[in-house]
């Protein structure tokens, strides 16, 4: 990553509070370096319109000539012959300075450094040598900040989204045409039927935990889609499913999900909204409450699907004490080891997102899995190609994926 980001970093802004010419007085005065020239201040791209990119040609004594340039100082004014104030410093060898300030007010006072969109600003640059030796100021250059309507740096991301979207739509289309796709069996999915059947035989409820994320987290949404399939099966088996939650929006969505599933299974009369219950807010109080449910309701099967943090192992071990069959799935890498160790089946990362397609068995859903596989193949090819190219010192692909926001 080094090369490109270092270069871009030189373009980045920095302002040194307290770095002042007089303060830096030191040592003997050498001959002053030549002034930088050709100052320009074009708009800084990809921003909200409060930044200018000051550019100049290096001093003749930067890396050559007297070779005594240490840094450049960038000064700004509202008028070409107005009063200039220092904006910041750029180290030697750098010919760009990012002057950005988008706070209109600071501490409820108007901010004098604020860059107004469309207003013309003038810049002068001078070189600074060791000691207090300064070059003359360059001729002023000017420019205006413009509000940008497209972030060019994000183009690779857009291409990525479009390609993946196209894969998904294409395979949905294929599935609608009647094409069937093979998917390999997943142990965690195959176990779902048995686990629900076991609860039915034992006459005990099923527990479905959606994790400690919010309803807007995609892993929780994946949890909803799995809950929907599981609830449909439980409705057919007439086994109650308990969904204790710690977020009210999750509660509302889970209620709709389960109700729909019961309707689709033709058993709307079995649906009890109070089984999807708000236990409490906050991670550990919620976990304590779920622990209580496991031990007191003696749930036969526990599902953990969504975002989990440290509570993963608390839940899984308590479930173990209660003797429940446990199926887990999360996208949290730090918690996967504990689910793997302490539950019977674990859906790892992407498998969590694939589970609803597996359980629904609908061709359209399975089609999206095919799209994911194609995207993965492309990803692997790009990754390998990029690694080969960079080994040959061709950074083309690497630069392409190295998105700088």
């Amino acid at each position: 990553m080094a090369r490109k980001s270092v270069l871009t970093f030189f373009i980045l802004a920095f302002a040194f509070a307290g770095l002042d010419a007089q303060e830096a007085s030191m040592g003997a005065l050498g001959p002053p370096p030549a002034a930088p020239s050709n100052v320009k201040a074009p708009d800084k791209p990809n921003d909200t319109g409060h930044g200018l990119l000051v550019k100049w040609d290096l001093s003749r004594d930067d890396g050559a000539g007297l070779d005594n340039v240490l840094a450049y100082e960038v000064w700004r004014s509202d008028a070409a012959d107005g009063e200039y104030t220092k904006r910041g410093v750029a180290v030697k060898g750098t010919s760009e300075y990012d002057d950005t300030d988008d706070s209109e007010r600071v501490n409820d006072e108007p901010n004098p450094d604020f860059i107004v969109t469309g207003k013309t600003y003038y810049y002068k640059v001078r070189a600074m040598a060791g000691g207090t030796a300064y070059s003359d100021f360059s001729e002023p250059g000017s420019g205006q900040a413009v509000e940008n309507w497209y972030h060019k740096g994000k183009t690779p991301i857009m291409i990525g989204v479009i390609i993946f979207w196209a894969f998904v739509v294409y395979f949905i289309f294929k599935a609608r045409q009647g094409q069937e796709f093979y998917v390999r069996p997943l142990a965690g999915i195959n176990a779902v039927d048995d686990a629900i059947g076991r609860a039915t035989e034992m006459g005990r409820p099923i527990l479905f935990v959606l994790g400690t994320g919010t309803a807007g987290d995609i892993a929780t949404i994946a949890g909803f889609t799995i809950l929907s399939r599981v609830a449909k099966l439980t409705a057919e088996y007439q086994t109650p499913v308990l969904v204790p939650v710690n977020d009210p929006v999750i509660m509302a969505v889970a209620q709709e999900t389960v109700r729909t599933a019961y309707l689709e299974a033709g058993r709307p009369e079995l649906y009890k909204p109070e089984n999807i219950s708000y236990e409490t807010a906050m991670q550990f109080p919620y976990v304590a409450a779920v622990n209580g449910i496991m031990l007191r309701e003696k749930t036969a099967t526990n599902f953990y699907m969504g975002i989990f943090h440290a509570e993963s192992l608390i839940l899984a071990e308590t479930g173990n004490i209660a003797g429940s069959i446990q199926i887990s799935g999360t996208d949290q890498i730090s918690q996967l080891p504990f689910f793997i160790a302490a539950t019977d089946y674990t859906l790892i990362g992407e498998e969590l997102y694939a589970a609803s397609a597996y359980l629904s068995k609908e061709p359209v859903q399975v089609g999206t899995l095919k799209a994911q596989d194609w995207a993965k193949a492309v990803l692997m090819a790009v990754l390998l190609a990029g690694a080969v190219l960079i080994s040959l010192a061709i950074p083309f692909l690497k630069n392409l994926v190295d998105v700088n926001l």
Partner: protein
Amino acid sequence: MTTAELLWNTLAAILTLCVFSFLIKDNPFYKFAERLVAGVAAGFWTMLLYHTNFHDKVVLTMQNGQWAYIIPILLGIGMWTRFSKNYAWMSRFSIAFYMGISTGVSIPVFMYTNIFKQVSATMIPFDGTVNVLVIIGVLCSLFYFFFSKAHTGTFGLVSRIGIYTLMIGFGAGFGMTVMGRVALLVQRVIFMKDYFIGLFGG
């Protein structure tokens, strides 16, 4: 320690023991602590959100005349139709926006952080065994996640290497975490120790 401090500390110490008693088995003391904290957490959270989010995004926006906020407020109130059987369907509008915004925001963000950043970090030159093995490990592990290929033959071998890599990673993750968990327990033990010293020694 003042009497008030002592009493508060005693409460905290008793509750700590109540929770630890769960290790022996579920019991009324644990259940009491569990139920108490459920109520306290819900109450704390209610007032926290009331004084922060509700005040800032509902009360203040209306006072300041930010009328654009009427739409989310109406959608929020729309959630309350869930109290009624007949009008509950109206809450779906609110849920729909909630889901639409959440998923729409996530797509490019996942594309950037989970895909581009990772691919870029893995595009390393093939010099040295470490780099080569990391690249092979990433490719094989990704291969394990292929759903539409049976894991047999060559595919089976590659995905096997992949799942082995994942398992080593999980084992390492487990082993690395023990220290932090023990440290948390030590903190509780030291809390109890300090409490007893304060009670009898000081």
